[in-house]
Protein backbone atom coordinates (compact mmCIF):
# COMPACT_ATOMS: atom_id res chain seq x y z
CA UNK A 1 0.00 0.00 0.00
CA UNK A 2 1.42 3.34 -0.99
CA UNK A 3 0.61 5.80 1.77
CA UNK A 4 1.59 8.76 -0.38
CA UNK A 5 -1.22 8.44 -2.95
CA UNK A 6 -4.32 10.49 -2.28
CA UNK A 7 -6.71 7.80 -3.49
CA UNK A 8 -5.57 4.20 -3.08
CA UNK A 9 -7.46 2.18 -5.67
CA UNK A 10 -6.43 -1.12 -4.19
CA UNK A 11 -7.70 -0.15 -0.76
CA UNK A 12 -10.87 1.11 -2.36
CA UNK A 13 -11.46 -2.28 -4.00
CA UNK A 14 -10.68 -4.03 -0.75
CA UNK A 15 -13.34 -2.13 1.21
CA UNK A 16 -15.87 -2.28 -1.60
CA UNK A 17 -17.68 -5.46 -0.47
CA UNK A 18 -18.25 -4.12 3.04
CA UNK A 19 -19.51 -0.82 1.65
CA UNK A 20 -21.81 -2.54 -0.83
CA UNK A 21 -23.30 -4.66 1.94
CA UNK A 22 -24.07 -1.48 3.87
CA UNK A 23 -25.39 0.11 0.69
CA UNK A 24 -27.93 -2.70 0.41
CA UNK A 25 -29.26 -1.56 3.80
CA UNK A 26 -29.40 2.03 2.62
CA UNK A 27 -31.36 1.09 -0.48
CA UNK A 28 -33.56 -1.33 1.41
CA UNK A 29 -34.39 1.25 4.08
CA UNK A 30 -35.22 3.75 1.36
CA UNK A 31 -37.49 1.40 -0.57
CA UNK A 32 -39.34 0.10 2.49
CA UNK A 33 -39.45 3.57 4.05
CA UNK A 34 -40.78 5.23 0.93
CA UNK A 35 -43.42 2.55 0.39
CA UNK A 36 -44.60 3.14 3.96
CA UNK A 37 -44.39 6.90 3.48
CA UNK A 38 -46.59 6.69 0.37
CA UNK A 39 -49.26 4.66 2.11
CA UNK A 40 -49.01 6.69 5.32
CA UNK A 41 -49.01 9.96 3.40
CA UNK A 42 -52.09 8.96 1.43
CA UNK A 43 -53.92 7.96 4.62
CA UNK A 44 -52.90 11.17 6.40
CA UNK A 45 -53.96 13.27 3.42
CA UNK A 46 -57.37 11.58 3.26
CA UNK A 47 -57.84 11.96 7.01
CA UNK A 48 -56.85 15.60 6.89
CA UNK A 49 -59.37 16.22 4.10
CA UNK A 50 -62.12 14.43 5.99
CA UNK A 51 -65.18 16.44 6.88
CA UNK A 52 -65.12 14.92 10.36
CA UNK A 53 -63.00 17.00 12.70
CA UNK A 54 -62.47 13.93 14.81
CA UNK A 55 -60.36 12.64 11.92
CA UNK A 56 -58.98 15.80 10.36
CA UNK A 57 -57.66 17.51 13.48
CA UNK A 58 -55.46 14.66 14.76
CA UNK A 59 -54.11 14.16 11.24
CA UNK A 60 -53.30 17.86 10.95
CA UNK A 61 -51.65 17.72 14.38
CA UNK A 62 -49.43 14.79 13.46
CA UNK A 63 -48.43 16.32 10.12
CA UNK A 64 -47.56 19.71 11.59
CA UNK A 65 -45.75 18.22 14.57
CA UNK A 66 -43.60 15.89 12.51
CA UNK A 67 -42.80 18.51 9.89
CA UNK A 68 -41.79 21.01 12.57
CA UNK A 69 -39.31 18.80 14.41
CA UNK A 70 -35.99 17.36 13.20
CA UNK A 71 -35.85 13.79 11.93
CA UNK A 72 -32.97 13.15 14.36
CA UNK A 73 -35.11 13.93 17.40
CA UNK A 74 -37.93 11.73 16.10
CA UNK A 75 -35.51 8.86 15.64
CA UNK A 76 -34.10 9.32 19.15
CA UNK A 77 -37.59 9.24 20.52
CA UNK A 78 -38.53 6.09 18.64
CA UNK A 79 -35.35 4.25 19.55
CA UNK A 80 -34.32 5.54 22.99
CA UNK A 81 -37.51 6.90 24.56
CA UNK A 82 -40.27 4.60 23.32
CA UNK A 83 -38.80 1.52 25.15
CA UNK A 84 -39.66 3.39 28.37
CA UNK A 85 -43.28 3.15 27.23
CA UNK A 86 -42.93 -0.50 26.40
CA UNK A 87 -42.28 -0.21 22.66
CA UNK A 88 -38.88 -1.67 21.90
CA UNK A 89 -37.82 -1.71 18.28
CA UNK A 90 -34.60 -2.82 16.65
CA UNK A 91 -32.47 0.01 15.33
CA UNK A 92 -33.32 -0.94 11.77
CA UNK A 93 -37.07 -1.06 12.46
CA UNK A 94 -37.07 2.18 14.43
CA UNK A 95 -34.98 3.87 11.75
CA UNK A 96 -37.13 2.71 8.86
CA UNK A 97 -40.35 3.53 10.68
CA UNK A 98 -39.03 6.92 11.78
CA UNK A 99 -37.89 8.05 8.37
CA UNK A 100 -41.11 6.67 6.84
CA UNK A 101 -43.29 8.63 9.26
CA UNK A 102 -41.22 11.76 8.73
CA UNK A 103 -41.59 11.61 4.97
CA UNK A 104 -45.20 10.43 5.15
CA UNK A 105 -46.05 13.86 6.51
CA UNK A 106 -44.37 15.60 3.58
CA UNK A 107 -45.95 13.18 1.14
CA UNK A 108 -49.34 13.86 2.79
CA UNK A 109 -49.13 17.54 2.01
CA UNK A 110 -48.18 16.89 -1.61
CA UNK A 111 -50.97 14.33 -2.01
CA UNK A 112 -53.42 16.74 -0.43
CA UNK A 113 -52.45 19.43 -2.94
CA UNK A 114 -52.90 16.87 -5.73
CA UNK A 115 -56.33 15.85 -4.45
CA UNK A 116 -57.40 19.47 -4.09
CA UNK A 117 -56.40 20.11 -7.69
CA UNK A 118 -58.89 17.55 -9.04
CA UNK A 119 -61.90 19.61 -10.16
CA UNK A 120 -65.15 19.23 -8.24
CA UNK A 121 -66.86 18.33 -11.49
CA UNK A 122 -65.00 15.03 -11.48
CA UNK A 123 -66.51 14.12 -8.13
CA UNK A 124 -69.92 15.18 -9.33
CA UNK A 125 -69.73 13.25 -12.57
CA UNK A 126 -68.64 10.13 -10.71
CA UNK A 127 -71.35 10.57 -8.06
CA UNK A 128 -73.95 11.08 -10.76
CA UNK A 129 -72.92 7.65 -12.07
CA UNK A 130 -73.62 6.19 -8.60
CA UNK A 131 -70.00 5.23 -8.03
CA UNK A 132 -69.15 4.49 -4.42
CA UNK A 133 -66.75 6.88 -2.69
CA UNK A 134 -64.14 4.11 -2.74
CA UNK A 135 -64.50 3.66 -6.52
CA UNK A 136 -64.41 7.42 -7.03
CA UNK A 137 -61.14 7.74 -5.13
CA UNK A 138 -59.53 4.69 -6.64
CA UNK A 139 -60.53 5.03 -10.28
CA UNK A 140 -61.29 8.69 -10.82
CA UNK A 141 -59.67 11.00 -8.29
CA UNK A 142 -56.38 9.34 -7.32
CA UNK A 143 -55.21 8.63 -10.88
CA UNK A 144 -55.74 12.32 -11.63
CA UNK A 145 -54.24 13.52 -8.35
CA UNK A 146 -51.08 11.41 -8.62
CA UNK A 147 -49.98 12.50 -12.09
CA UNK A 148 -49.07 16.12 -11.35
CA UNK A 149 -47.36 15.24 -8.06
CA UNK A 150 -45.05 12.52 -9.38
CA UNK A 151 -42.12 14.97 -9.73
CA UNK A 152 -42.59 16.19 -6.15
CA UNK A 153 -42.83 12.62 -4.88
CA UNK A 154 -39.64 11.80 -6.79
CA UNK A 155 -37.87 14.67 -5.06
CA UNK A 156 -38.91 13.31 -1.69
CA UNK A 157 -37.72 9.84 -2.63
CA UNK A 158 -34.26 11.21 -3.41
CA UNK A 159 -34.29 13.44 -0.32
CA UNK A 160 -35.23 10.47 1.84
CA UNK A 161 -32.47 8.37 0.31
CA UNK A 162 -29.96 11.09 1.13
CA UNK A 163 -31.35 11.39 4.68
CA UNK A 164 -30.69 7.73 5.53
CA UNK A 165 -27.25 8.55 7.08
CA UNK A 166 -29.20 10.21 9.91
CA UNK A 167 -30.15 6.69 10.94
CA UNK A 168 -26.52 6.08 11.92
CA UNK A 169 -27.30 8.17 15.01
CA UNK A 170 -29.38 5.30 16.33
CA UNK A 171 -26.72 2.72 15.35
CA UNK A 172 -28.18 1.56 12.04
CA UNK A 173 -25.16 0.46 10.04
CA UNK A 174 -26.08 1.99 6.71
CA UNK A 175 -23.58 3.10 4.08
CA UNK A 176 -22.35 6.26 5.78
CA UNK A 177 -21.73 4.66 9.18
CA UNK A 178 -19.94 1.77 7.50
CA UNK A 179 -17.72 4.24 5.63
CA UNK A 180 -16.99 6.09 8.86
CA UNK A 181 -16.19 2.83 10.66
CA UNK A 182 -13.77 1.80 7.92
CA UNK A 183 -12.19 5.23 8.14
CA UNK A 184 -11.67 5.13 11.87
CA UNK A 185 -10.25 1.60 11.73
CA UNK A 186 -7.81 2.21 8.88
CA UNK A 187 -7.19 5.92 9.36
CA UNK A 188 -8.02 6.32 5.69
CA UNK A 189 -11.14 8.36 5.12
CA UNK A 190 -10.66 9.46 1.52
CA UNK A 191 -11.57 6.14 -0.09
CA UNK A 192 -14.60 5.09 1.99
CA UNK A 193 -16.15 8.56 2.11
CA UNK A 194 -15.54 9.14 -1.61
CA UNK A 195 -17.04 5.79 -2.50
CA UNK A 196 -20.05 6.42 -0.28
CA UNK A 197 -20.55 9.82 -1.90
CA UNK A 198 -20.24 8.35 -5.38
CA UNK A 199 -22.73 5.69 -4.49
CA UNK A 200 -25.27 8.27 -3.34
CA UNK A 201 -24.65 10.31 -6.47
CA UNK A 202 -25.12 7.41 -8.88
CA UNK A 203 -28.27 6.10 -7.22
CA UNK A 204 -29.80 9.58 -6.96
CA UNK A 205 -29.25 10.30 -10.63
CA UNK A 206 -30.59 6.88 -11.55
CA UNK A 207 -33.74 7.45 -9.47
CA UNK A 208 -34.25 10.90 -10.98
CA UNK A 209 -34.10 9.39 -14.44
CA UNK A 210 -36.58 6.70 -13.46
CA UNK A 211 -38.97 9.31 -12.07
CA UNK A 212 -38.73 11.29 -15.29
CA UNK A 213 -39.46 8.11 -17.29
CA UNK A 214 -42.48 7.44 -15.09
CA UNK A 215 -43.67 11.01 -15.56
CA UNK A 216 -43.47 10.65 -19.32
CA UNK A 217 -45.29 7.33 -19.21
CA UNK A 218 -48.12 8.76 -17.13
CA UNK A 219 -48.52 11.83 -19.29
CA UNK A 220 -51.86 11.99 -21.02
CA UNK A 221 -52.17 12.84 -24.69
Amino acid at each position, binding site marked *: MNGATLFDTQFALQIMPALLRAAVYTVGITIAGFALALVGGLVLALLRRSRSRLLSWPATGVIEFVRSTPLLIQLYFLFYVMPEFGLTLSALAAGTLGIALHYACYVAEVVRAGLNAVPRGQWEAAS*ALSMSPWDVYRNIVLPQAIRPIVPALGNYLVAMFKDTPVLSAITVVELMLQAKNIGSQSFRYVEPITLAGLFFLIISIFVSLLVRKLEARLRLP
Partner: protein
Amino acid sequence: MPHSNINASSIKSAVIGDPILRLRGVSKRYDKLTVLDNLDMDIEANEKVAIIGPSGSGKSTLLRVLMMLEEIDDGVIELDGEPLTHMSVNGALVPASASHRSKGRRNIGMVFQNFNLFPHMTALQNVAQAPNKVLGLSQQEANKRASELLDMVGLSDKLAHFPSQLSGGQQQRVAIARALAMRPRVMLFDEVTSALDPELCGEVLNVIRRLGSEHQLTMLMVTHQMGFAREFADRVCFFSEGKIVEQGTPEALFGAPAHERTQAFLRAVTEAI
Protein backbone atom coordinates in the same frame (compact mmCIF):
# COMPACT_ATOMS: atom_id res chain seq x y z
CA MET B 1 -92.02 20.66 6.95
CA PRO B 2 -90.62 18.11 9.41
CA HIS B 3 -90.13 14.79 7.70
CA SER B 4 -91.25 12.71 10.62
CA ASN B 5 -94.78 14.02 10.27
CA ILE B 6 -95.23 12.45 6.87
CA ASN B 7 -96.78 9.05 7.10
CA ALA B 8 -95.17 6.61 4.73
CA SER B 9 -98.46 4.79 4.19
CA SER B 10 -99.84 7.91 2.56
CA ILE B 11 -97.27 7.58 -0.19
CA LYS B 12 -98.91 5.95 -3.15
CA SER B 13 -97.18 3.21 -5.01
CA ALA B 14 -96.40 3.92 -8.62
CA VAL B 15 -99.33 3.34 -10.90
CA ILE B 16 -99.73 4.35 -14.49
CA GLY B 17 -100.35 8.07 -14.75
CA ASP B 18 -98.52 8.84 -11.55
CA PRO B 19 -95.59 11.16 -12.05
CA ILE B 20 -92.15 9.59 -12.20
CA LEU B 21 -90.80 12.53 -10.20
CA ARG B 22 -92.79 14.43 -7.65
CA LEU B 23 -91.43 17.37 -5.66
CA ARG B 24 -93.33 18.69 -2.68
CA GLY B 25 -92.27 21.76 -0.75
CA VAL B 26 -88.64 21.39 -1.81
CA SER B 27 -86.40 24.13 -0.50
CA LYS B 28 -82.69 24.65 -0.79
CA ARG B 29 -80.88 27.45 0.99
CA TYR B 30 -77.28 28.64 1.11
CA ASP B 31 -76.98 30.55 4.34
CA LYS B 32 -79.67 33.19 3.90
CA LEU B 33 -80.01 32.84 0.15
CA THR B 34 -83.00 30.73 -0.84
CA VAL B 35 -82.23 28.98 -4.12
CA LEU B 36 -85.26 26.70 -4.26
CA ASP B 37 -88.30 28.09 -2.52
CA ASN B 38 -90.94 25.60 -1.43
CA LEU B 39 -91.07 24.07 -4.89
CA ASP B 40 -93.87 21.74 -6.00
CA MET B 41 -93.42 19.97 -9.32
CA ASP B 42 -94.63 16.79 -11.01
CA ILE B 43 -92.88 15.23 -13.97
CA GLU B 44 -94.62 12.50 -15.93
CA ALA B 45 -92.79 9.52 -17.31
CA ASN B 46 -91.35 10.24 -20.77
CA GLU B 47 -92.17 13.90 -20.42
CA LYS B 48 -89.69 16.37 -21.91
CA VAL B 49 -89.44 19.41 -19.71
CA ALA B 50 -87.42 22.51 -20.57
CA ILE B 51 -86.45 24.78 -17.71
CA ILE B 52 -85.66 28.37 -18.52
CA GLY B 53 -85.07 31.46 -16.49
CA PRO B 54 -82.49 34.02 -15.47
CA SER B 55 -79.22 32.92 -13.92
CA GLY B 56 -79.48 32.37 -10.19
CA SER B 57 -83.14 31.42 -10.47
CA GLY B 58 -82.48 27.90 -9.17
CA LYS B 59 -82.73 25.98 -12.46
CA SER B 60 -79.41 24.22 -12.16
CA THR B 61 -79.91 23.69 -8.45
CA LEU B 62 -83.11 21.82 -9.23
CA LEU B 63 -81.18 19.35 -11.39
CA ARG B 64 -78.43 19.11 -8.80
CA VAL B 65 -80.80 18.21 -5.98
CA LEU B 66 -82.54 15.65 -8.21
CA MET B 67 -79.10 14.12 -8.89
CA MET B 68 -78.43 14.31 -5.14
CA LEU B 69 -75.33 16.39 -5.64
CA GLU B 70 -76.86 18.82 -3.14
CA GLU B 71 -78.92 18.08 -0.07
CA ILE B 72 -82.33 19.67 0.18
CA ASP B 73 -83.19 21.57 3.34
CA ASP B 74 -86.91 20.91 3.25
CA GLY B 75 -89.54 18.94 1.42
CA VAL B 76 -89.69 15.59 -0.30
CA ILE B 77 -88.58 14.37 -3.70
CA GLU B 78 -90.23 11.15 -4.81
CA LEU B 79 -89.16 8.87 -7.61
CA ASP B 80 -91.96 6.46 -8.55
CA GLY B 81 -93.67 7.37 -5.32
CA GLU B 82 -90.60 6.48 -3.25
CA PRO B 83 -88.81 9.25 -1.40
CA LEU B 84 -85.41 9.71 -3.01
CA THR B 85 -83.39 11.13 -0.15
CA HIS B 86 -85.41 9.58 2.63
CA MET B 87 -86.73 6.16 3.45
CA SER B 88 -89.49 4.97 5.68
CA VAL B 89 -88.62 3.18 8.88
CA ASN B 90 -91.61 2.08 10.97
CA GLY B 91 -93.85 4.55 9.18
CA ALA B 92 -91.59 7.54 9.68
CA LEU B 93 -89.31 9.07 7.10
CA VAL B 94 -85.63 9.19 7.97
CA PRO B 95 -82.65 10.25 5.83
CA ALA B 96 -81.91 7.45 3.40
CA SER B 97 -78.96 5.12 3.72
CA ALA B 98 -76.18 5.25 1.17
CA SER B 99 -77.43 2.12 -0.57
CA HIS B 100 -81.00 3.44 -0.78
CA ARG B 101 -79.71 6.68 -2.25
CA SER B 102 -77.52 4.85 -4.69
CA LYS B 103 -80.45 2.70 -5.86
CA GLY B 104 -82.62 5.73 -6.52
CA ARG B 105 -79.77 7.54 -8.14
CA ARG B 106 -79.27 4.84 -10.73
CA ASN B 107 -82.58 5.82 -12.30
CA ILE B 108 -81.26 9.28 -13.00
CA GLY B 109 -78.47 10.35 -15.31
CA MET B 110 -76.95 13.78 -15.70
CA VAL B 111 -75.02 15.64 -18.38
CA PHE B 112 -73.07 18.68 -17.25
CA GLN B 113 -72.30 22.01 -18.80
CA ASN B 114 -68.55 21.36 -18.66
CA PHE B 115 -68.79 17.70 -19.75
CA ASN B 116 -66.75 16.53 -16.73
CA LEU B 117 -65.34 13.60 -18.67
CA PHE B 118 -62.60 11.64 -16.93
CA PRO B 119 -59.47 13.01 -18.62
CA HIS B 120 -57.31 9.96 -17.87
CA MET B 121 -59.63 7.58 -19.68
CA THR B 122 -60.46 7.04 -23.33
CA ALA B 123 -63.96 7.71 -24.60
CA LEU B 124 -64.71 4.00 -24.33
CA GLN B 125 -63.38 3.76 -20.78
CA ASN B 126 -65.32 6.84 -19.77
CA VAL B 127 -68.57 5.20 -20.84
CA ALA B 128 -67.75 1.65 -19.69
CA GLN B 129 -66.46 2.63 -16.25
CA ALA B 130 -69.71 2.88 -14.30
CA PRO B 131 -71.51 -0.10 -15.90
CA ASN B 132 -68.49 -2.17 -14.95
CA LYS B 133 -67.91 -0.81 -11.44
CA VAL B 134 -71.44 0.04 -10.36
CA LEU B 135 -73.74 -2.29 -12.29
CA GLY B 136 -71.26 -5.14 -12.14
CA LEU B 137 -71.14 -5.85 -15.86
CA SER B 138 -68.05 -7.71 -16.97
CA GLN B 139 -65.42 -5.58 -18.66
CA GLN B 140 -66.38 -7.17 -21.98
CA GLU B 141 -70.10 -6.48 -21.55
CA ALA B 142 -69.43 -2.95 -20.35
CA ASN B 143 -67.19 -2.26 -23.35
CA LYS B 144 -69.82 -3.66 -25.69
CA ARG B 145 -72.50 -1.44 -24.19
CA ALA B 146 -70.14 1.54 -24.31
CA SER B 147 -69.21 1.08 -27.95
CA GLU B 148 -72.86 0.68 -28.93
CA LEU B 149 -73.73 3.94 -27.18
CA LEU B 150 -70.76 5.76 -28.67
CA ASP B 151 -71.88 4.48 -32.03
CA MET B 152 -75.33 5.86 -31.33
CA VAL B 153 -73.95 9.33 -30.64
CA GLY B 154 -71.88 9.11 -33.82
CA LEU B 155 -68.48 8.53 -32.28
CA SER B 156 -67.73 4.95 -33.29
CA ASP B 157 -64.39 6.10 -34.71
CA LYS B 158 -63.31 7.84 -31.48
CA LEU B 159 -63.42 4.98 -28.98
CA ALA B 160 -59.72 5.12 -28.18
CA HIS B 161 -59.49 8.90 -28.08
CA PHE B 162 -58.88 10.75 -24.84
CA PRO B 163 -61.15 13.70 -24.02
CA SER B 164 -58.35 16.16 -24.78
CA GLN B 165 -58.25 14.80 -28.33
CA LEU B 166 -61.94 15.48 -28.91
CA SER B 167 -63.82 18.68 -29.75
CA GLY B 168 -66.24 20.13 -27.23
CA GLY B 169 -69.21 18.76 -29.11
CA GLN B 170 -67.67 15.30 -29.28
CA GLN B 171 -66.83 15.42 -25.57
CA GLN B 172 -70.39 16.32 -24.72
CA ARG B 173 -71.66 13.44 -26.84
CA VAL B 174 -69.36 11.08 -24.95
CA ALA B 175 -70.79 12.51 -21.74
CA ILE B 176 -74.32 11.78 -22.95
CA ALA B 177 -73.32 8.21 -23.82
CA ARG B 178 -71.70 7.87 -20.40
CA ALA B 179 -74.90 8.89 -18.63
CA LEU B 180 -77.00 6.61 -20.85
CA ALA B 181 -74.77 3.63 -20.12
CA MET B 182 -76.38 3.36 -16.69
CA ARG B 183 -79.76 2.96 -18.45
CA PRO B 184 -81.40 5.76 -16.48
CA ARG B 185 -85.08 6.51 -16.83
CA VAL B 186 -84.64 10.20 -16.20
CA MET B 187 -81.98 12.28 -17.93
CA LEU B 188 -80.96 15.69 -16.64
CA PHE B 189 -79.27 18.10 -19.04
CA ASP B 190 -77.67 21.09 -17.35
CA GLU B 191 -76.98 23.77 -19.96
CA VAL B 192 -75.24 21.16 -22.05
CA THR B 193 -74.49 23.47 -24.97
CA SER B 194 -73.46 26.57 -23.00
CA ALA B 195 -69.76 25.75 -23.06
CA LEU B 196 -69.76 24.95 -26.77
CA ASP B 197 -68.90 27.05 -29.76
CA PRO B 198 -72.13 27.82 -31.60
CA GLU B 199 -71.28 25.64 -34.58
CA LEU B 200 -70.86 22.61 -32.29
CA CYS B 201 -74.22 22.95 -30.53
CA GLY B 202 -76.11 21.34 -33.38
CA GLU B 203 -74.46 17.94 -33.13
CA VAL B 204 -75.24 17.74 -29.41
CA LEU B 205 -78.82 18.92 -29.81
CA ASN B 206 -79.33 16.40 -32.62
CA VAL B 207 -78.31 13.59 -30.28
CA ILE B 208 -80.74 14.85 -27.64
CA ARG B 209 -83.48 15.14 -30.25
CA ARG B 210 -82.93 11.54 -31.30
CA LEU B 211 -82.91 10.37 -27.71
CA GLY B 212 -86.23 12.04 -27.18
CA SER B 213 -87.89 10.53 -30.22
CA GLU B 214 -86.39 7.03 -30.19
CA HIS B 215 -86.18 6.20 -26.49
CA GLN B 216 -88.49 6.02 -23.53
CA LEU B 217 -86.80 8.67 -21.47
CA THR B 218 -87.96 11.36 -19.14
CA MET B 219 -85.88 14.42 -19.85
CA LEU B 220 -85.34 17.60 -17.89
CA MET B 221 -83.33 20.23 -19.59
CA VAL B 222 -82.03 23.51 -18.28
CA THR B 223 -81.31 25.54 -21.37
CA HIS B 224 -80.75 28.96 -22.83
CA GLN B 225 -81.56 27.69 -26.32
CA MET B 226 -85.12 28.96 -26.59
CA GLY B 227 -85.49 27.66 -30.12
CA PHE B 228 -84.61 24.16 -29.06
CA ALA B 229 -86.81 24.32 -25.96
CA ARG B 230 -89.72 25.39 -28.11
CA GLU B 231 -89.27 22.62 -30.62
CA PHE B 232 -88.31 19.82 -28.26
CA ALA B 233 -90.16 20.22 -24.98
CA ASP B 234 -93.65 19.08 -24.03
CA ARG B 235 -93.64 21.65 -21.27
CA VAL B 236 -91.59 24.73 -20.52
CA CYS B 237 -91.12 25.95 -16.96
CA PHE B 238 -90.01 29.49 -16.30
CA PHE B 239 -88.04 29.78 -13.08
CA SER B 240 -87.44 32.90 -11.10
CA GLU B 241 -86.17 33.24 -7.55
CA GLY B 242 -86.39 29.54 -6.81
CA LYS B 243 -89.96 29.12 -7.97
CA ILE B 244 -91.84 28.15 -11.08
CA VAL B 245 -93.38 31.46 -12.01
CA GLU B 246 -95.11 30.16 -15.11
CA GLN B 247 -95.31 26.92 -17.03
CA GLY B 248 -97.11 25.52 -20.01
CA THR B 249 -96.75 24.18 -23.50
CA PRO B 250 -94.01 25.86 -25.53
CA GLU B 251 -96.66 27.48 -27.71
CA ALA B 252 -98.42 28.98 -24.70
CA LEU B 253 -95.34 30.07 -22.79
CA PHE B 254 -93.38 31.49 -25.69
CA GLY B 255 -96.43 32.64 -27.65
CA ALA B 256 -98.43 34.33 -24.94
CA PRO B 257 -96.56 34.54 -21.65
CA ALA B 258 -98.97 35.58 -18.93
CA HIS B 259 -96.59 36.67 -16.24
CA GLU B 260 -94.78 39.96 -16.33
CA ARG B 261 -91.44 38.45 -15.36
CA THR B 262 -91.72 35.82 -18.09
CA GLN B 263 -92.42 38.52 -20.63
CA ALA B 264 -89.44 40.56 -19.47
CA PHE B 265 -87.14 37.53 -19.57
CA LEU B 266 -88.24 36.42 -23.02
CA ARG B 267 -87.92 39.96 -24.31
CA ALA B 268 -84.38 40.23 -22.94
CA VAL B 269 -83.42 36.86 -24.41
CA THR B 270 -84.73 37.61 -27.88
CA GLU B 271 -83.09 41.03 -27.87
CA ALA B 272 -79.76 39.41 -27.09
CA ILE B 273 -79.85 37.35 -30.28
